[in-house]
């Protein structure tokens, strides 16, 4: 279940990046970069990384390079090659420290490496840039599941209500 969630988090990043590109780029795009992202979406990390590496080599501008490296960070993380994943995320953030998707990806890598303090720092930085990002919310949930796991429970109380009972729960 956790694996499926992880794939979904990374893949949504890839989808968002492509969607962003589709809105603004006219004419032919980087086909390998696009196909690599689609492979990552389906969980085929090996093929996704292979295509994205080709896409990176053919990148025509900084934006494509940033997208490729961010997706490579996700792809290598899915392949459990966390050192390589981190290096790509670090490269993206060295070029653009406002790219919240790379913070999100790197936070996931840190979670997998159980480097929770660094994961939280990246989540906070990402949230500061994009407070409403759904993927960051999912990453935060994964962080909390790893550091503060909880099990939901429901108490159904049919007993007469205590008069004036306060419902102030966190």
């Amino acid at each position: 279940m956790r694996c499926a969630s992880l794939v979904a988090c990374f893949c949504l990043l890839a989808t968002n990046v492509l969607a962003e590109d589709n809105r603004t780029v006219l004419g032919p795009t980087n086909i390998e970069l696009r196909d690599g992202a689609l492979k990552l979406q389906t969980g085929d990390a090996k093929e996704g990384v292979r295509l994205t590496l080709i896409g990176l080599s053919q990148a025509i501008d900084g934006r494509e390079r940033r997208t490729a490296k961010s997706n490579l960070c996700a792809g290598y993380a899915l392949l459990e090659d966390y050192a390589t994943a981190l290096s790509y995320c670090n490269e993206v953030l060295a070029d653009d420290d406002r790219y919240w998707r790379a913070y999100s990806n790197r936070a996931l890598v840190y979670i997998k490496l159980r480097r929770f303090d660094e994961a939280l720092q990246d989540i906070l930085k990402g949230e500061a840039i994009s407070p409403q990002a759904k993927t960051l919310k999912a990453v935060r949930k994964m962080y909390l599941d790893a550091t503060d796991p909880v099990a939901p429970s429901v108490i159904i109380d049919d007993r007469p209500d205590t008069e004036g009972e306060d419902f102030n729960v966190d």
Partner: protein
Amino acid sequence: MLTSSRWLLSTTLLMIALTATATAEDEADVTHLLDPAAERKPLQTVVPVYPSRALQDRVQGDVEVCFSVDREGRTSRVAVRKSSHRMFEKPAMLAVRASSYVALQEHEILSAIKTCRIFRFRLDPVAIEDPADPSVSGKP
């Protein structure tokens, strides 16, 4: 074509994520505290879903729902009387609407007094063993 396939893929992945969430919600522990003096006895009690957003944000809360129960044991006129967070209100109301009570016998009189039920949504800490930690390996 590509746009539609991308939409399909992301939808599929979202479905996977949502299925995982629903499964987690279904696994909520349930405690039902009955009122032995109550006139109406529950027949089928539906458990509300723990809202995924509340679970994600680690929010707990209480909701008191009051409602009428007809002769056949069906609930109606369901309304929230008190709640700590709005996000718990809808699942609580849905649960009450889907619940039922034992029908009255012919000679029994239907009370006009509303029935109330409190739902307490809680998050219990869970201990997870770290497989990398040798102190929890179980070996002597």
